[in-house]
């Protein structure tokens, strides 16, 4: 008779869990290494950053002069003025800024949820059949002096047993990969020193 308990016990759960955990650990290391490489790329990529552009507006009154015509005057002969404006632009000196400083962070990933699912189907069938065939044949004959008789019998017994047993199994493994904030130990710290007040240092980390 099939022993379902024994079949389930034969499933190598421990090995499956170990293999999956081991694969996840290896993948996590590879992902972290790739993200660290990315930190290096971002920290070494600079672009010229223009911190600010100052636009200074100054009044610039002027007399209206339609195209191809003399300057306009009112009925008293006073010039018709409009409040013009002059825009002076002052672009600050650009300085190199890394992508990391600018705010581009590498994405770190972590395996958050892993599932191992094992499905097993055990089928057992047993079929028995017996057949018994018994026959008796009696013949007798008699005449004036003799008499004879015979008895024949047969017994046919057939027994058959069919037994089938099958176990089918399937397993599936799934895991979820989610982006997570950069681990603090993997990200550089930024020290902002204000030259006007060197005692005041601001430390920040992504």
């Amino acid at each position, binding site marked *: 008779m099939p022993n379902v308990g024994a079949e389930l016990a034969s499933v190598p759960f421990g090995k499956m869990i170990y293999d999956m955990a081991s694969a996840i650990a290896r993948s996590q290391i590879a992902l972290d290494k790739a993200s660290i490489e*990315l930190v290096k790329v*971002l920290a070494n990529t600079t672009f010229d950053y223009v911190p600010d552009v100052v636009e200074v507006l100054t009044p610039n009154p002027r007399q209206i002069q339609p195209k191809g015509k003399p300057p306009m005057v009112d009925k008293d002969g006073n010039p018709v003025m409009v409040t013009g404006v002059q825009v002076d632009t002052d672009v600050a000196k650009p300085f190199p800024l890394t992508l990391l400083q600018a705010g581009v*962070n*590498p*994405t770190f990933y972590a395996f958050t949820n892993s599932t191992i699912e094992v499905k097993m189907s055990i089928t057992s069938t047993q079929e028995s059949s017996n057949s018994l065939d018994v026959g008796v044949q009696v013949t007798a004959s008699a005449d004036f002096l003799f008499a004879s008789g015979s008895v024949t019998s047969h017994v046919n017994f057939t027994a058959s047993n069919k037994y089938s047993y099958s176990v089918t199994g399937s397993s599936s493994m799934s895991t979820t990969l989610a982006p997570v904030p950069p681990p603090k130990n993997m990200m550089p710290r930024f020290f902002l020193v204000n030259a006007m007040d060197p005692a005041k240092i601001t430390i920040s980390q*992504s």
Partner: protein
Amino acid sequence: MATQMYIVAFKGTFSQEVSRNVQHCVRQHGGLILMVVRTGVIVALDDSQAPMVEKHPDVALVGGVTLNPRGYAAERLQRIFAENLSKQLEIKTE
């Protein structure tokens, strides 16, 4: 199928031709160029397409990046990304 922001780093030193080739490859795989820098391009790319772009001979690595809103120039970068995106997106009107 999700679109993420990636940096596609160039192999070797920067050249206009390498940059153009990589950008062309990104566009062929349905990506959008957000910003071009000397070491690579920042792109918006579908997750499934990232490994294909990584196979390009001029690409050193493709890695996911995020924009840290506390970054020194995060807002400026966001504007640059949006401006570059608008030049590549086709809006169909019916």
